[in-house]
């Protein structure tokens, strides 16, 4: 209910935001689109950029709509928070460490920063987990987070963290690769740790790891960081000699190096060199230069660089300038901030970048600068949120435990600006949540000064926190604070007992110390005594507790006693008198009867069950003696317990004295009928059965019949419905609204009887005017009317309902009208078929206006649009688009329209189309689709310009769709361009984009390119997800390439399966539905497409369907048939139940055979013969013999070795079966001779069946021979099969012969297999032969004969 009522609100809310977004984006975009189209490809690049960038910079300078624009990015943050994270990736794993890592990953994607607590938590968790080698992959994933992403960092912490990591990483037997070294190097670099390049390289070399381009780049950075240009140059020379490409990153570092040593000319000359090598200085370059100036506080030069950048047409993002700003403040020039701040562009990412800068400033103690940055951030305009805006800064200051006075000063300031409505309470909550107990106490003190209430429970987290950190002094400190506040006695003692004393005892204080400390802190006598009582109780010393309590000045807390007394009683060896005395004293102190307390304690004691009769007696006596009473309500329950004792009547009598004679017991009315829910769950057959039973008892069956009728109507069973209705009518049943609806529904949908349906509808409407949930009945009736061509009638029907129950249509339940979409569509189809074309429009309009249908499926609308696109009729396209948009709020095929218009270079119309579609899909989606369209039409520059629209952010679901489109159509160039130009898009999930690029490489088998893409992960400092690594590894392996990284397996990371592609998604769907065949077709198809499922994926699929044993077996069987050894090996490790485990082992054998790799397995089994029984099956052996008969020898060898353990006969049985079935009787004989136990213990069922199936009489005879001495029951088996075999051949004499032979060998008819006897009987009767047994007429079926 709650969710439903909130739904429209949030939607409306979002719509407002989107409208605001649209407004802003349009201001820039209208001109942009027109301009883009106006000069298609004819103008040179530079000119174009200047014109556009000039435009947008001007926009920034003027800051035309600062309010809206500010609003924008906060909206972005909020929206992003809500939606796109959801559509990106949900942490879905069971392993806590992996989960934390995923959270970390998400943080990086969303905010561009990580929380140092997260990182330290993960490291702590890894340390706890202990096994370094298994955690290593994870540890290395954390490494990159320790660098620039940690805006909250302080150097000491990072140093600790990274050294922790690196030390725990240095585990033996762990393989490193070059990217691990690079990551470590980057961390040290970003944390200003000095690195000696020579030692680092030597270290790498000693571990036989070859440095790559990134390593050298980082080393250059290290030298430059220290201003060692010579060192950097040496590395640069080396890179050149190795023919490694030298990119912009390297130049930027060199500039940095020059700036470090104050060599401005040198820096400038590097820039010249860059230009000379046809590398244009980028935003990063300018930033580096400016940071250099910032260190010296040279704000004029910074201004100059900014101007240069503008003339060069380079767009500087907020993050660049915020870095400069940070450097200014950090190096002691905060006075220049005000010059730089207004020059930062208000783009989408402004708030995030400003926040990152602000947090760094707070971390380094520059509070005032942080406040200044904060005040420039964009704030939403809605007044309800205003009051919380200041929290982002204040919270952070609390987190960093900045001086409280400063925080309060800022809070006041923000209050005046209308940015905060919080008071000091809030600071307290944050301090608690951030686990800063000392700081929390400071805040409490301040609160007291300001006459704010400080309540005992505020101290709970403080005590817990000090306890956890082992800070005894902290606990005492908190005690003093607690004693100094005005309080409610009960709450104080609860705090003292549950929190303070727990902490003190945990830290090793004994009872005397605790009491002394409490007194010292200044707690009142009654409180301290209460704690003494409770501590005695805790030890089970009831007598002592009662003594202290009796001494007069003691407070007794009912809630504490309630929780403790029963347990103390048990511990005290059933000291009933003291326990009851305590209860009595508590009532005395409270001055009232505490029935609740008494009832709860006494019933808990009695229910514990371990009391003997004497103890119960004592307890009840003590109760009576102390004059205690209980609620009458629990008497019944306790009586039951007392009944189990001897002399129960005496005990119960006592109980009656204690339990107050309350009002009458209220028993829950026993429901004769099943609740409606129960009926609803029953299926038709179940209900029929219930009905039958009820009738046989002559019970009232109306309820069952009613439900049955309802169900039959829904399933369209006309005949049964009529029967039931007749029966109900005869009983004078009054139909309720639901049933009338059901009957009407049956009439309209199944019987297609308009008159009848209308009759029911009218009856329902007149009898139950308030009943409203019958929309689909209305639609079905309207459909019937349309079918009859009666358009006005149909429309009237729809109107009628809307007039009666319009609210129902508007109600939340139908807001996503997909439930009705199918019926509406079928109704429209009927209309198209049976009515004139105008009618369709009218009906659609009616459905739409009345709210039957909202943004449902309008698939029919695509058809005319398609026709116009094919005709290249731009005007027509727009006309129909306009119509669908304005009338139905839909914009089908808009991408196709965009492309068509771009091809036609029709700027005006494209603009109109964009505007139209925007009203439907919102600015973000439309702009991104426009980007795709431009790329596809080979107009990348225009696409790039669109991406620079302020306020635009990545909507990953849309981008993924775009990638998927390029993937499907194999548009390599387009994909590359898309991935490249979206690099700086706000909120982009880089891993996803690069992964899509890799996927396309894989599709084309281009592994070299895929490796290039992988390198760009490192360069861009993007963390590849495990699925990406696995995917890439698979690609490389399939091309026999070495994988340059450790491949994480799903088992290691504990991830849950996520589909990476549409195919995988489908595979999951098929298997979940148990449709193995569809899955296999899909698998084959994807293999022939060159995108085979990875073995990891296949193994994970098994995990999904494990609950469904049948599908699981079919699935693993299919895998074995496909020779998927690797997948099966992983599945084997999934902790399967025994039966499945065995099954999977056997499949593994078969898979090895199928894959032609069985020799590996056999060699292993020869070494480990004790495992043989798990793998071996007769069928497996047969298959092996078919493909590689020479390997049977190895099996024989393994069997021989395995039989050291003689009880393992199943292995030998398989071998025996195999020999028999392949006509090697002599070998079979040898087996029997060698293992005589087989005669009595071999399982023969399988062989018998197989032999009979293959008509191999000799095998069966052999079995008879082998088992002659065995039990008759066993011997009956080959005989039965022999008889059956002969009967199948219609040879009754031979069959009879075997029957007699069996008899003569002592096998009785009763032992034999019924099926064989039945066949024999049939044969004998057909041939008019007497039966060798008596027929017993009363039985039917296979057990029809009376056994002799």
């Amino acid at each position: 209910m709650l969710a439903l009522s909130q739904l429209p609100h949030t939607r409306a809310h979002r719509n407002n935001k989107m409208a605001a977004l649209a407004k802003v984006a349009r201001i820039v975009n209208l001109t942009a689109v027109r301009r883009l189209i106006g000069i298609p490809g004819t103008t040179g690049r530079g000119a174009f950029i200047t014109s556009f960038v000039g435009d947008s910079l001007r926009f920034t300078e003027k800051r035309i709509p600062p309010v809206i624009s500010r609003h924008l990015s906060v909206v972005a943050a909020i929206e992003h928070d809500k939606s796109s994270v959801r559509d990106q990736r949900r942490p879905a794993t069971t392993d806590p460490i992996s989960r934390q890592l995923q959270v970390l990953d998400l943080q990086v994607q969303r905010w561009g920063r990580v929380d140092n607590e997260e990182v330290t938590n993960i490291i702590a968790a890894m340390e706890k987990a202990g096994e370094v080698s298994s955690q290593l992959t994870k540890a290395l994933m954390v490494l990159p987070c320790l660098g620039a992403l940690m805006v909250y960092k302080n150097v000491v912490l990072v140093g600790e963290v990274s050294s922790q990591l690196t030390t725990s990483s240095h585990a033996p037997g762990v393989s490193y690769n070059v990217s691990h070294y690079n990551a470590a190097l980057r961390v040290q670099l970003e944390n200003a740790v000095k690195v000696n390049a020579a030692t680092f390289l030597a270290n790498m070399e000693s571990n036989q790891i070859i440095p790559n381009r990134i390593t050298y780049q980082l080393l250059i950075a290290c030298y430059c960081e220290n201003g060692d240009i010579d060192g950097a140059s040496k590395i640069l020379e080396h890179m050149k000699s190795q023919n490694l490409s030298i990119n912009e990153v390297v130049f930027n570092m060199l500039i940095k190096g020059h700036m470090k040593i104050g060599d401005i000319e040198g820096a400038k000359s590097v820039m010249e060199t860059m230009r000379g090598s046809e590398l244009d200085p980028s935003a990063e370059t300018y930033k580096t230069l400016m940071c250099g100036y910032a260190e010296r506080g040279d704000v004029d030069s910074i201004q100059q660089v900014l101007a240069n950048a503008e003339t060069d047409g380079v767009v500087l993002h907020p993050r660049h300038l915020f870095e400069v700003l940070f450097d200014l403040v950090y190096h002691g020039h905060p006075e220049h901030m005000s010059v730089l701040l207004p020059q930062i562009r208000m783009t989408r990412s402004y708030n995030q970048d400003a926040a990152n800068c602000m947090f760094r400033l707070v971390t380094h103690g520059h509070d005032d600068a942080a406040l200044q940055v904060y005040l420039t951030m964009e704030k939403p305009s809605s007044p309800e949120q205003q009051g919380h805006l200041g929290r982002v800064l204040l919270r952070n200051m609390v987190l960093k435990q900045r001086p409280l006075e400063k925080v309060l000063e800022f809070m006041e300031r923000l209050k005046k600006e209308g940015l905060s409505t919080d008071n000091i309470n809030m600071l307290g909550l944050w301090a608690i949540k951030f686990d800063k107990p000392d700081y929390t106490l400071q805040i409490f003190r301040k609160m007291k000064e300001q006459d704010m209430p400080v309540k005992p429970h505020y101290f709970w987290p403080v005590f817990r926190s000090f306890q956890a950190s082992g800070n005894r002094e902290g606990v005492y400190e908190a005690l003093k604070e607690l004693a100094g506040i005005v309080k409610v006695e009960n709450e104080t003692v609860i705090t003292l007992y549950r929190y303070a004393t727990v902490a003190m005892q945990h830290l090793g204080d004994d009872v005397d110390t605790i009491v002394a400390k409490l007194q010292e802190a200044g707690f009142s006598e009654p409180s301290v005594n209460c704690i003494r009582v409770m501590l005695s109780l805790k030890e089970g010393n009831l007598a002592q507790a009662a003594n202290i309590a009796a001494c007069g000045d003691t407070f007794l807390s009912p809630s504490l006693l309630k929780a403790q007394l029963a347990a103390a009683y048990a511990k005290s060896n059933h000291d009933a008198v003291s326990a009851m005395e305590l209860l009595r004293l508590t009532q005395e102190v409270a001055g009232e009867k505490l029935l609740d307390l008494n009832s709860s304690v006494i019933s808990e004691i009695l229910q514990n069950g371990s009391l003997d009769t004497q103890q119960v007696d004592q307890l009840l006596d003590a109760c009576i003696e102390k004059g205690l009473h209980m609620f009458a309500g629990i008497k019944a329950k306790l009586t039951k317990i007392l009944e189990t004792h001897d002399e129960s009547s005496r005990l119960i009598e006592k109980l009656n004295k204690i339990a107050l004679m309350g009002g009458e017991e209220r028993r829950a009315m026993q429901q004769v009928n099943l609740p409606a829910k129960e009926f609803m769950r029953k299926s038709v057959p179940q209900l029929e059965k219930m009905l039958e039973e009820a009738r046989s008892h002559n019970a009232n069956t109306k309820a069952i019949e009613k439900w049955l009728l309802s169900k039959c109507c829904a399933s369209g069973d006309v005949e049964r419905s009529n029967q039931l209705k007749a029966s109900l009518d005869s009983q004078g049943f009054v139909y309720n609204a639901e049933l009338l609806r059901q009957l009407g529904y049956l009439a309209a949908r199944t019987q297609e009887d308009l008159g009848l349906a209308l009759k029911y509808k009218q009856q329902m409407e007149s009898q139950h005017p308030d009943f409203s949930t019958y929309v689909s009945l209305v639609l079905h009736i309207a459909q019937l009317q349309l079918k009859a061509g009666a358009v006005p009638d149909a429309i009237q029907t729809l109107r009628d309902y809307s007039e009666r129950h319009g609210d129902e249509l508007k109600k939340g339940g139908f807001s996503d009208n997909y439930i009705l979409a199918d019926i509406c569509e079928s109704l429209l189809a009927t209309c198209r078929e049976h009515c004139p074309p105008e009618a369709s429009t009218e009906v659609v309009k009616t459905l739409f206006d009345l709210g039957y249908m909202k943004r449902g499926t309008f698939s029919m609308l695509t058809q005319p649009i398609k026709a116009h696109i094919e005709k290249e009729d731009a005007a027509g396209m727009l006309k129909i688009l306009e119509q669908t948009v304005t009338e139905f709020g839909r914009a089908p095929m808009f991408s196709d329209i965009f492309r068509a218009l771009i091809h036609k270079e029709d700027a005006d119309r494209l603009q109109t189309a964009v505007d139209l579609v925007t009203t439907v899909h919102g600015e973000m989606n439309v702009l991104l689709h426009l980007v795709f369209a431009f790329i596809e039409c080979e107009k990348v520059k225009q696409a790039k310009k669109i991406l620079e629209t302020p306020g635009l952010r990545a909507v990953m679901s849309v981008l993924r769709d775009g990638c998927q489109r390029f993937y499907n159509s194999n548009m390599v160039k387009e994909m590359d361009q898309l991935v490249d130009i979206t690099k700086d898009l706000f909120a982009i999930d880089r891993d996803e984009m690069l992964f899509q690029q890799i996927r396309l490489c894989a599709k084309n088998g281009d592994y070299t390119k895929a490796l290039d893409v992988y390198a760009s992960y490192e360069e861009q400092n993007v963390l590849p997800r495990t699925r990406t690594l696995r995917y890439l590894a698979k690609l490389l392996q399939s091309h026999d390439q070495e994988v340059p990284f450790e491949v994480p397996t799903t088992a290691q990371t504990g991830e849950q399966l996520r589909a990476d592609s549409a195919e995988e998604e489908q595979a999951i769907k098929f298997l979940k539905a148990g449709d193995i065949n569809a899955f296999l077709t899909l698998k084959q198809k994807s293999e022939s497409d060159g995108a085979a499922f990875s073995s990891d994926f296949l193994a994970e699929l098994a995990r999904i369907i494990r609950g469904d044993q049948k599908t699981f077996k079919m699935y693993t069987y299919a895998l074995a048939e496909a020779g998927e050894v690797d997948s099966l090996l992983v599945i084997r490790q999934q902790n399967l139940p025994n039966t499945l485990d065995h099954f999977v082992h056997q499949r593994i054998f078969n898979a090895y055979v199928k894959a032609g790799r069985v020799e590996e397995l056999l060699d292993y089994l020869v070494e480990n013969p004790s495992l043989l029984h798990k793998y071996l099956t007769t069928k497996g052996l047969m298959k092996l013999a078919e493909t590689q008969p020479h390997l049977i020898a190895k099996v024989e060898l393994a069997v021989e070795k395995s039989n050291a353990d003689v009880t393992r006969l199943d292995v030998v049985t398989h071998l025996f079966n195999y020999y028999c079935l392949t006509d090697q009787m002599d070998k079979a004989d040898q087996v029997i001779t060698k293992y005589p136990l087989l005669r009595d213990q071999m399982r023969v069922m399988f062989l018998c069946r197989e032999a009979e199936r293959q008509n191999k009489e000799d095998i069966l005879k052999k079995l008879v021979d082998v088992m002659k001495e065995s039990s008759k029951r066993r011997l009956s088996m080959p005989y039965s099969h022999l008889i059956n075999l002969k009967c199948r051949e219609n040879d009754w004499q031979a069959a009879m012969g075997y029957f007699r032979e069996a008899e003569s060998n002592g096998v009785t008819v009763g032992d034999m297999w019924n099926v064989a006897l039945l066949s024999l009987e049939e044969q004998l009767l057909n041939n008019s032969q007497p039966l060798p047994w008596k027929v017993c007429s009363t039985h039917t079926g296979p057990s029809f004969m009376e056994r002799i």
Partner: protein
Amino acid sequence: MSGNLRRLFVGNIPWTVSQFELKQYFAKFGPVRSASIIFDDKTGISKGYGFVSFANRDALSSTVNHSDHELDGAKLNLQAVSPKQRNTRIDTDE
């Protein structure tokens, strides 16, 4: 004697409110048998929700019928805890 019928879930309780204050507040509407706020046992921090049991059904209904409940500046979310929510709608085509 199903006490559940008189039980109330209370959400959005600010951390500053103690169990005693919660009980006091709801006692305005009728006799309260017990009131509790759920605290995280490990950290001692309030989880922001709790339960109130009334001594009779009238107290519960008068509480629920009262439209706005506010404590320490926060609007409370109330929801009667019923033993089983009966769903009487027939499952049909809709």
